[in-house]
Every structure is written in C-alpha cells, then in structure tokens.
C-alpha cells in the first residue's frame, strides 16, 4: 500500500499541473474536463480505498494551495471520491470492464453535487443551475472520455497490485 501511495504522488502532481495549465482554461460545450478527479478515481479503483483516500487528500491539498482556494475544500471532496471509488473497485466494480467509465460518470456527478453543497454551506457564491445542470453533462462526458487514457497509464503503474488481487481471490476460494 505504501508503495502505491508513493507511486501516486508524482502522478497526482502531474495531473494537478496539467489541470491548471491545460484543462482549466479549455471549455467545451459549457463544461471542462477534470483530470485530477479522473486520476484520483482511477488510482483508487486500481489501488484500493485507503490509497484512493490518501491520494485524494494530497491532490486536493495541491489544488487548493496552487489556486489559493479554501484550504481543505478540494481535499475533503477528493478524499471522499478516492475512498468511494476504491471501495467500488474492491467490491462490485473490480472485475467489470466498464467499471472505470461507470465510476467516473457517477463520481463526476457526486463531486459536482458535493462541491455545490460545500460552497453553499461555506457561504461562497454558487449556482445550483450552473453547477448541476449547465455544466454537468459536458463535464461527465469529457471526464469519461479522459478516463480511457488515464486508466491505460495508471494500469501500467499499478499492475502489480492487480495481479496480487487475482492471487488473493484464488487463495480465498481454495
């Protein structure tokens, strides 16, 4: 697990830089892709809930630091995203081919809802219509599209654990 966390550190750092420099300014059909969210969810799916939660916290901390946002805002949301995606990977979605795409679609919607609720509770200016209707559909579509290359890269890095998991399953059955 510790090795997975160390592997995820540079990956998330790169994802944050990519998000800030490349993906944030690009708007397609009113929405934008979130490579950090995709990276955290995919790492969590491949490496488990604890690694996902730790990765989410680290990614959120980096994002909030770089954008001078409310410290802890993105960390809280991405920690939950990482943990939930990890649990999904460990239980129901582990052996399904479409699990990453399904998880990312669901996670993007939940992340938007969580972001809206948290902004509302913190008294920050927000709009339910904009966050949950105007931008959500293109954002889900773009994040799902982005999942394929991110998953391909992450799968190579976290492949060892994949094999280990298969072995564990064999042991349990025996």
């Amino acid at each position: 697990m510790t090795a997975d966390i160390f592997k995820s550190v540079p990956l998330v750092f790169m994802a944050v830089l990519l998000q800030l420099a490349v993906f944030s300014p690009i708007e397609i059909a009113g929405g934008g892709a979130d490579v950090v969210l995709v990276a955290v969810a995919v790492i969590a799916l491949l490496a488990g809930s604890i690694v996902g939660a730790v990765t989410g916290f680290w990614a959120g901390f980096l994002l909030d630091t770089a954008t001078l946002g409310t410290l802890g805002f993105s960390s809280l949301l991405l920690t939950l995203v990482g943990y939930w995606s990890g649990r999904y990977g460990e239980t129901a979605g582990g052996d399904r081919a479409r699990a990453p795409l399904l998880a990312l679609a669901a996670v993007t919607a939940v992340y938007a809802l969580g972001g809206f609720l948290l902004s509302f509770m913190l008294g920050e200016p927000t709009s339910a219509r904009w966050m949950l209707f105007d931008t959500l559909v293109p954002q889900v579509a773009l994040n799902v599209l982005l999942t394929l290359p991110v998953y391909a890269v992450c799968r190579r890095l976290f492949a060892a654990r994949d094999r280990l998991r298969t072995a564990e399953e064999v042991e349990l059955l025996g």
Partner: protein
Amino acid sequence: MITGYFRESEGGVLHDMQSAGARALEPFQIGAARLVLPFRDAWGWFDGLIDAKSENEKLRSQVDEYRAALVEARSRPGPAPDVTDATRVAAAPRYPDFRLLAADVIFDGMGYQQQIVISAGSRDGVHRYDPVIARRGKVLVGHVSKVAASTAVVTLITDRSSAVSAYVLERRAKGSVRGRGPQHSTVYLDRVPKQEVVRLGDEVVTAGRLSGENYPSFYPRGIAIGKVTAVHQSDTHTFKLVHVTPYADLSGLDRVVVLLPRKPLPVLP
C-alpha cells in the same frame, strides 16, 4: 482544516502554509503554463476562426465610424491643435498615481467564481483591491482579491461579487458595473437613473476619482471597461439596466498588468 482556515486571520498558520506551498508550486505552474502556451494560442487561433468573419465586419464598421468622427473633428472651425502639447500628453504616464507591474496568468479558473491566479504577490508589492488591466489594450480585467507571498487571486469583472464604479464616456451617466457570473458574457451597468440617456455602442470607463484629490480611488479614472450592447428600463425598476460587453477577452488571458498605487489607499473594514 476548513474550519481552521475559515476561523483564522489572513496571517494564520494555515494561510502561511498555503502561501509557502503556492510559492513552491509557482515555478512549476509558470513552467507548465509557458510550455502549453503555443498550444493554447493554436487552440485560440482555430477557435477565433469560427467567428472571424462576423468580427471582421464589426471591426470594419467601427473603423468607418471612427473615420467619420475624425473627419468631423478635423473639419470643425477653430485653432489648429498644439502639436507640442499633444506630444507631451501622449508621452505622459497614463496613470501617474500607479506603478505598473506585469504578471503571468498561472491559473485560469473554470469554476463558478470568475477568478484567475497571477504570478505576483505581496513580495512584489501587490495588495488586495489593486486594479488589474489586460496587457493588450489596457482594458479593465478585475481586481486583486487575495494575496499570497508570490501569487495573487484576481477576481474578474464578470464575477458576481465584482462591482466597479463607472460612467458612460459619451453621456457622463454614472453607475456601477456588476458581474453576472459564468453563464453570461456581459456585465451590468447598474444604478443608472432612468432620466439619463445611454445609447448602444457607448463606451463605459471606470469613474475613479481624479489624481490629486484627497480621497483616492481604488481604480484610476478612465480605464476602458466595455461597450454598451443593450439598454432596458421598465416602470417597475428604479434604474436603467444597461448591458455592457467587456473589451477584455477574459477567457484567453496569459499576461496582465497590476496597477500598484504609489500612495496608501483607504482601508476597507
């Protein structure tokens, strides 16, 4: 962490930690932003091609208007303008009470709050509420809303929390330019009395107080904000509702200029 961050002052531990972190990340952000700049430019170029034809027509009609105005001004009877004075005015600094500081845009946010992060902070003399203008065209972009050691957050004029005292250049009608959020490309010129005349195409500029007055303004007078594109009024509303399209291309900023006041500005509570 969120609670602690909210409850502490701007000089608190978490704020200091964030500022130090932002300082450490700044070189990476600048590097990444410069690396992708050619690609962003290419994207902007192709994106701009889509409405290049209609924009070209608009610009041509503007040139015709300006040419007609110039001919009319030249044909007026009166003494010829003093060339020496005109040269002196042109060479004089445009904002004598402010120093100009150029900064890179290192984060161009996509969230509901219309904000960008720039590569200049308190170490460079940037303070909260300093006005920010675009490098090209010197038109208003927004104001500094949060400052760290080497970076700062700029709230754009399209953000809902932004309000700038402004007036219509041609008519002297005063009001307040307010942002409308990310769904809208225009801003409101609010608080314009109904008896004032505002026409389509009128230019809206900042109404900051003139240099040398006792109580200086956060914004210098005369920074171009945008052009009037719609005017509404109804019996039930107290004021006119004027739509202004900002001159600044707020979606494609790569470098901005911060106006640093030479004199201390009034402190807001």
